């Protein structure tokens, strides 16, 4: 009896949203333009059945040259089943495709793996398994990636009682030595095998989670052969805060606050991406002033991030003076931020439809002072560190990542560009005011640690020139569009990406028309960069792990989300 009552009650509130008798009345005056044209960032999802998925993916990969798996998102559509959304892009033709696949089996959901086509799918599919419990047949390493191995349930499922099943455990976490491999056999049954992660006789060293040079709490299990690295198995999740799950119970303006805390050195860009995604989905056009302000702020943030990248790399390699030089210049940017935004690191500046406050009267003056100052000081960086022969020996030809590997692993940002991959979102899909400015995409071909450092230093110069072009031409206008007090995004799936400080930061938003998102997924810039560490480091010295990790430039809170 009780059960019946419960079900009927749970259906009732859902029915009006589907039938929508009162709903169309409300949004009509708010967004008259929205229904006429579909939103710019709306994903046209091609639904592919799980059985046909792998063949279709192989066709796209081989025939249509879809060699970049941009984003892979697990989904829980409740009654409609569990599934995955794939975003593919061709680095040759620039064509983009979104696919969707669904399985209705909630007890034992199985989907075919695409790890054989794109290397980065390995870690993405592990993430989906961790959050939704979807197992991928043909995946070589079906383990949890963020949660502890003794975690009960799958936290992102809508019906999971996560907190009840998982009290705080203070015992040491178990780390398995073997992993599960599922293979789909010809007769349709699935066979489960165990596979050792490390081989017998491997000498395994743990680095992290508490280590000063892992840039956060990251844990590597490194198999060594003498002093050379044989294999790296990253253990993530030490700063997994479940931001994506939290977003599902927050209103849209509330979700903004958490983006700043993902990649705190790309706070502006991450928040920009989410704001832009919501604005485009709602059909809100922001003023030119806002676009220019956002562009300048993004570039300042990029300089800030790259300076910190340089400083930390120097610190990791023992050059403390260079660290101090970097922080001296970074403080100048933080001063500029502080005057306008009020914060130093967590800025909370972008809002849906604009920015939080207008520019401070001193802003232009300060920025104009900063540009020549930084151009002069960056020469010091070369004098004190980059030209150093010890650094050359440790960086040149070390940790080489080829272009094909970079694309297959989805390593966007400076890491990919150092390997010769033109992946700058500002050029690929211009947003804000990037179509109005002249700038070069800094690309090198060596793909080693040294190239990765130089790309970032050159990007500082490019960013300065972007700011220089815009700072005198900030158009007049309002800094905040008038928005309704309760923001609701029309139903649909939307994807927007920006060029974050260390690569493509994407936001996938699925809305059911409510005031909070149904699913909000962030394409982390850092997760592919951590996934690639095994490939980049194998064969190099253990000591070079620090140099390579420093130059690949991941931020762990962004990886773990």
């Amino acid at each position: 009896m009780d059960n019946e009552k419960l079900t009927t009650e749970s259906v009732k509130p859902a029915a009006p949203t589907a039938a929508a008798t009162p709903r169309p009345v409300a949004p009509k005056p708010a967004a008259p333009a929205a229904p006429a044209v579909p939103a710019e960032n709306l994903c046209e999802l091609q639904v592919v059945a799980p059985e046909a998925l792998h063949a279709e993916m192989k066709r796209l990969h081989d025939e249509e040259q879809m060699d970049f798996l941009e984003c892979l998102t697990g989904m829980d559509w409740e009654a409609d089943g569990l599934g995955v959304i794939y975003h593919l892009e061709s680095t040759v033709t620039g064509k983009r495709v979104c696919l969707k696949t669904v399985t209705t089996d909630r007890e034992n959901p199985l989907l075919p793996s695409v790890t054989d086509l794109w290397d980065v799918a390995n870690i993405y599919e592990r993430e989906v398994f961790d959050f939704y419990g979807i197992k991928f047949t043909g995946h070589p390493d079906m383990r949890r990636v963020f949660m502890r191995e003794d975690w009960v349930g799958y936290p992102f499922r809508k019906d999971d009682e996560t907190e009840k099943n998982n009290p705080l455990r203070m015992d040491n976490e178990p780390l398995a030595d073997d992993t599960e491999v599922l293979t789909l056999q010809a007769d349709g049954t699935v066979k489960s095998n165990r596979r050792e992660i490390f081989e017998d006789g491997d000498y395994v060293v743990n680095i992290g989670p508490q280590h000063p040079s892992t840039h956060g709490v990251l844990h590597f299990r490194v198999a060594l052969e003498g002093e050379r690295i044989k294999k790296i198995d990253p253990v993530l999740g030490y700063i997994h805060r479940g931001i994506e799950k939290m977003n599902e119970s927050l209103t849209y303006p509330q979700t903004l606050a958490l983006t700043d805390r993902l990649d705190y050195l790309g706070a502006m860009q991450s928040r920009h991406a989410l704001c832009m995604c919501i604005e485009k989905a709602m059909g809100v056009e922001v003023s030119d002033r806002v676009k220019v302000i956002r562009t300048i702020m993004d570039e300042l943030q990029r300089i800030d991030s790259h300076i910190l990248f340089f400083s930390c790399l120097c610190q990791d390699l023992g050059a403390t003076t260079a660290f101090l030089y970097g922080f001296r210049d970074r403080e100048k940017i933080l001063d500029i931020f502080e005057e306008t935004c009020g914060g130093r690191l967590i800025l909370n500046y972008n809002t849906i439809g604009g920015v939080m406050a207008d520019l401070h009267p001193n802003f232009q003056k300060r920025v104009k002072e900063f540009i020549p100052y930084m151009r002069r000081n960056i020469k010091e960086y070369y004098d004190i560190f980059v030209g150093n022969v010890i650094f050359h020996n440790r960086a040149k030809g070390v940790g080489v990542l080829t272009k094909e590997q970079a694309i297959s692993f989805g390593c966007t940002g400076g890491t990919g560009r150092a390997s010769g991959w033109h992946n700058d979102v500002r050029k690929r899909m211009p947003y804000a005011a990037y179509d109005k400015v002249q700038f070069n995409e800094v690309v090198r071909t060596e793909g080693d640690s040294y190239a990765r450092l130089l790309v970032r230093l050159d990007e500082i110069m490019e960013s300065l020139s972007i700011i220089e072009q815009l700072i005198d031409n900030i158009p007049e206008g309002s800094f905040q569009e008038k928005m309704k007090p309760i923001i609701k995004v029309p139903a649909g799936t939307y994807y927007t990406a920006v060029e974050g400080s260390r690569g493509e930061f994407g936001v996938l938003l699925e809305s059911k028309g409510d005031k909070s998102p149904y699913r909000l997924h962030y394409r982390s810039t850092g997760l592919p960069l951590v996934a690639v560490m095994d490939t980049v480091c194998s064969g190099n010295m253990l000591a070079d792990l620090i140099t390579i990790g420093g130059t690949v430039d991941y931020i762990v809170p962004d990886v773990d989300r």
Partner: protein
Amino acid sequence: MKRPKIKSIPYEEFKDNETFEKIVAELNAGGAHVLVKPLDDLINWGRSNSLWPLTFATSCCGIEFMAVCAARYDIARFGFEVTRNSPRQADVILVSGTITNKMAPVLKRLYDQMADPKYVVAIGGCSISGGPFTKSYHVVKGVDQIIPVDVYVPGCPPRPESFLYGMMQLQRKVKVENFFGTTNRKQKDPYKEEMKEQNVELLNQQEEA
């Protein structure tokens, strides 16, 4: 020492002197030894001006900690600049950043590995109460649930000035400590009492036998 002196900040300008005075009163309840106390003060003067922090940072607050270490805020003015990478060499752990359920046992182990006397400073909203992530299923709602905290520094992240203020509060706490232990003649030593009882019991048992 009842009113520890911190260079450049007068005693009255610290914010919660009441809490602090309560601690001092508690520590000195049994009176102070005329010879040991000056020795205490001397040692505490040295200890409070050379607190070595552990390089421990999980997220955003860690970047602010780096900024505090750099030239503008210059943590070396207070003697905190010797950041140690090993917990065995550190005096104070600055918990800067969110502590998740997976990280909690690691943090506890780090704390256990530190040698006494050791101190904990909870930096930022996340380590005080979970901060913006209180509703998350994977975040510890305050590090004081797993390790004892000496000073709380609120902020998200705290400004470098708050960092320094919090560290000065810790210095004051260190300065009033009884490093050589308290000598309270009025109070009976609970350990000795216990041993006495055990001895009596043993004697009784022997007599019975």
